[in-house]
């Protein structure tokens, strides 16, 4: 890995792969590539820990450079990136945001307004329905929603209570669970 260009190539491939999973962010790719290359090849001197940003968070040095979470000093990228979005920390943060989803499942006898009532409660709480599917088999109704809960205006427990209460009013059965359960059990 002494060859700088092949290192850069690898870093680019990895960064792009990660970025694509987070939603396409070419600016992040560039930043990560520069940071990884400079950290691994030792091209830029690593500042003493006291001047480094806290773990994983970049610090704007105010002189047109930034100190990244890995300790490299790099020119401040142009564009509208806020300091939090710089470098590795933003990757972690975006991963967290992306993962904040809940799965809402309701089952019961078909009744008028089930989708409307449940989705209204989701919206009231600041949830964003990212996917919804429903089936009716012999008057038995199943609706599954995947809800983005990263912008919830109330705690998860309150969100869950509201939905369960709405379901009870409709005489149907609802289950609200964190998406991590699905991911853990159904994805290797």
């Amino acid at each position: 890995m002494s060859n700088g260009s092949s290192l850069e190539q690898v870093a680019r491939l990895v960064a792009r792969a990660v970025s694509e999973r987070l939603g396409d962010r070419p600016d992040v790719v560039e930043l990560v590539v520069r940071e990884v290359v400079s950290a691994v090849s030792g091209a830029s001197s690593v500042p003493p820990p006291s001047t480094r940003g806290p773990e994983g968070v970049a610090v704007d040095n105010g002189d047109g450079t930034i100190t990244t979470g890995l300790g490299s000093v790099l020119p401040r990228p142009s564009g509208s990136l806020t300091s939090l979005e710089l470098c590795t920390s933003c990757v972690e943060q975006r991963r967290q945001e992306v993962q904040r989803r809940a799965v809402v499942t309701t089952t019961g006898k078909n009744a008028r307004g089930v989708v409307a009532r449940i989705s209204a409660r989701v919206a009231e709480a600041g949830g964003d329905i990212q996917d919804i599917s429903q089936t009716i088999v012999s008057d038995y109704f199943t609706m599954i929603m995947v809800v983005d809960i990263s912008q919830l205006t109330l705690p998860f427990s309150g969100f869950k209570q509201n939905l369960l209460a709405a379901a009870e009013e409709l005489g149907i059965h609802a289950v609200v669970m964190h998406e991590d359960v699905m991911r853990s059990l159904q994805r290797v």
Partner: protein
Amino acid sequence: MFYQNEEITEILRMIENEHLDIRAVNMGISLRGIISRDLDQTCASLREHILRCAENLVPTIIDVEQEFGVPITNKRLSVTPIALVGEASGADSFVPVAVAMDRAAADVGVDYIGGFSALVEKGKTRGDRVLIDSIPEALALTERVCSSVNVATTRAGINMNAIIVMGQRIKDLAGRTADRGGIGCTKLVVFANAPEDNPFIAGAMHGVGEADVAINVGVSGPGVVLAALRRLLANNPRCDLGEISETIKRMAFKVTRAGELIGREVARRLGPPVRFGVVDLSLAPTPAVGDSVAEILEAMGLERVGAHGSTAALALMTDAVKKGGLMASSYVGGLSGAFIPVSEDRGMVEAVRVGALSLEKLEAMSAVCSVGLDMVAIPGDTPAETISAIIADEISIGVVNNKTTAVRILPIPGKGPGESVDFGGLLGEAIVQPVNRFGCADFVLRGGRVPAPLISLRN
């Protein structure tokens, strides 16, 4: 869609219909920092320390349970073996420590606390002796305290003197709780090769090699495995044992992933110094219908568990559970196998009732599962020496096979073979099983140490 509808409904079905739950989230707490020369001081510090470490345990678990939608059945504590904690005091009884543990457990809202324990595989110190002598009174007096004594390891051999004493203590304890069917003995385990990170009561303890505070998780899942097996057999009634193993593996993977997820999340929320320890893969049955290990074995084609072939079926199942679970968790530990607690498993109770499952067959099955003779009721008039001999047999299986075995045996005061006692809740109903009536006292009472087996010489 991020997930197929079938994937989502499968998980709902597992939780709602097939009893998928996290059987136990156990917080292990080291008490090495509170040892004192004064037993009263030790008791006070013990309670204070447990309250400090575990005050947020139950609320955090309830939050995680709410958010993730996976039921967490039991919330428990375990501590450093009390023989080590109490020894410096020079006290003649550790019953006050048990009382302090009981109160601390009640204060933080857990139903059991393990660790009233001693490790005496090679010999006893004064503290070990005091602890073992305190067991009957301590367990009769308290509700939540559980006790375990490790009397053998593959490395050290078997301490027969300790086994003799344990036979007597078990009898004593049964007698002291005779008004409640001898329930005290449900809280006492005699171990060979006791694991130090076991999250399952009654054998839980926080070993001396552990960190300050650890979260260990015991998964459950016989219901999920049984349902999957029944679906397989409905679609393909002539499937072979390889396919059965494969199905169990897949389900064990999912069950274990749930445990890993919950354990890590609880540890993360509690924050340092709490760390995630291990997931115990054991399939743990409950008295609920359909949540039975016995029924899994019966689904494979045995008329009743205990029939010839039961040991092979259990071996197949335990192996598949381990293989599936191993891949699902980064840190596997504890007992990790399958439990066959007789009274806690409806299928086992039924098998005993119809005469299919004998004590001898259970002993054989324990060679291929994770524990041993667990929750087995025997006549109340069984001599202490016979109990010691039963323990010695079971412990030998563990020592020679380099595995954990345990005995949680329940002499039921005033009851004979075929009679039953209902402990209620997760402990279930126990039917008294006959024991071999031929003498063994002369053998057992020779005492001494049985040398470590050849398998111990691995260096």
